[in-house]
């Protein structure tokens, strides 16, 4: 898998991961993946191929569940991950679903991770203030989640994770509900922040452009059951300007190449559905 080598023990590794739900649906099939420390990897694949499931397993949320059967391992720094607590606070996960706590204000939600880490009140306030300004949510600090728009809630979830600067960050379509303008701004902010902090990032998106513009490598997954079809290296350094990148020839070539692979998965998925419809 691409890099590997010396840093293997320190990286995030997914080895021969297979998973099926009790309903009989086989979701992941022998997925192996390695993310080096400080690397930014994005994952693309057809809807329903198991991207969220993969992140859940990595986060340690899929084990000890009666409705899930899995084999293979996930390790971080050589430590095997079974439950969320195995991450000992080094993980951040921006869920696809809105999981802000509805009874806490935006401010209270964003500072949760800092409170868990025992950061004193004044430092928390300052950190939240900085972050809120970064994504243009000033004035909404003391508002409850139901009083925020969908895009604002998504930004709040992102802040909740960034606030405590976890070593490993999983993001599941964090910009899915955003307008093009905000999205572009956040792509830049997150990439910049990452370039400074160098956390290990696994970033799921359905937007191929976004995947290339942000990541160092792009993982293409097959239609369900999800397998790793191919891993593409993105030949750009940082800092990056998402808009400027999109004008480059290398970008166009890489985009076309991955798109071809993705389109093949779409076609295969459609063909399978059609066969199911006619056959059974």
């Amino acid at each position: 898998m691409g890099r590997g080598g010396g840093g293997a023990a320190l990286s995030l590794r997914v080895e021969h991961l297979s998973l099926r739900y009790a309903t009989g649906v086989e979701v992941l099939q022998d997925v192996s993946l390695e993310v080096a420390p400080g690397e930014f990897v994005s994952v693309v694949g057809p809807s329903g191929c198991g991207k969220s499931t993969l992140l859940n397993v990595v986060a340690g949320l899929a084990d000890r569940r009666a409705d899930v059967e899995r084999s293979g391992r996930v390790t971080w720094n050589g430590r095997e991950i079974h439950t969320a607590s195995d991450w000992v606070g080094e993980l951040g996960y921006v869920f696809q679903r809105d999981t802000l706590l509805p009874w806490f204000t935006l401010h209270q939600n964003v500072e949760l991770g800092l409170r868990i880490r025992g950061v004193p009140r004044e430092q928390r306030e300052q950190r939240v203030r900085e972050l809120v300004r970064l994504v243009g949510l000033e004035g909404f600090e003391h508002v409850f989640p139901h009083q925020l728009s969908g895009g604002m809630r998504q930004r709040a979830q992102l802040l909740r994770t960034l606030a405590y600067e976890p070593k490993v960050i999983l993001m599941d379509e964090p910009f899915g509900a955003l307008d093009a303008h905000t999205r572009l701004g956040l792509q830049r902010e997150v990439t910049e922040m990452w370039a400074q902090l160098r956390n290990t990032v696994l970033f799921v998106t359905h937007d191929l452009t976004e995947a290339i513009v942000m990541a160092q490598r792009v993982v293409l997954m097959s239609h369900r059951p999800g397998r790793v079809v191919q891993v593409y290296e993105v030949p750009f350094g940082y800092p990056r300007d998402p808009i400027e990148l999109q004008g480059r020839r290398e970008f166009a070539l890489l985009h076309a190449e991955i798109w071809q692979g993705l389109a093949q998965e779409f076609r295969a998925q459609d063909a399978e559905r059609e066969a199911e419809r006619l056959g059974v």
Partner: protein
Amino acid sequence: MAAVELKRVALGKVRWARRAAVGQTNVGLRLLAVGLSVAVWEAGTGGLGWRPLPPALLPSPGETWQSLVGYARSGLLALDVSRTLTQAFLGLALGMATGTALGVALAYARRLGDALEPLLAALNSLPRVAVAPLLIIWFGLGITSKVLLAFFTVVFVIFMNTYSGVRSVDPDLVRAVQVMGGGSRHVARWVVLPWVASWVFAALRTSISLALAATVTGEFVGSTHGLGYRMVLATGVLDTPRVFAILLVLMTVGYAVVEGARRVEAYLLRWRPELTM
């Protein structure tokens, strides 16, 4: 940032407009409704020079008021109200504490909860006032029997709500806290507690009315004080204006208490969309 400013102002304005609209419709129309009811009552009890029923069956507003004033002057009204309310609240408090504790405990001890659920549901469907005579036999005419009756009336309602509350906690919210590194203490304080509290509050308002009704029923069956006791006395001597006066007191007290609870609830659960809308 101009857009943000604009949105904030808009949010404030919408809220303000909503409150204003509610305020206007309420006061005027509601007072009118009360006034009309009293007027109809007055008209049917001699106000228009026509009185189909004698005062012993249907007293007029004036007669009721006079009886109420007499009741208050004797000092018994304050005594009875405080006795009835004390009993109802003690029963409610006991029921809340026990029901919540039991609900949480059984929801966590899954096996035990599953085993006891049908039994408790059956007890819950028992008409609680039916045990009033038994409680009087066991605990006498004093305050204890009434407190226990109120307790039995509310404890199952609170228990059931707490139990279903704990069991229906959104697992994704729990996961979100766990993923941030939160332990079971954080999950309990930040996810389970607020969630269950919202279920308990939902049961609180009904429980207050239930506790009050149970107390008065207990006083009917056997007591030496309280609004229910005074009502039984007045009925015995066909003092219908006094009965009406007591009913008015019960209505007012009940309304005040439930309305108070509603406001506390609306404040504590202001994070819920349906309550602030």
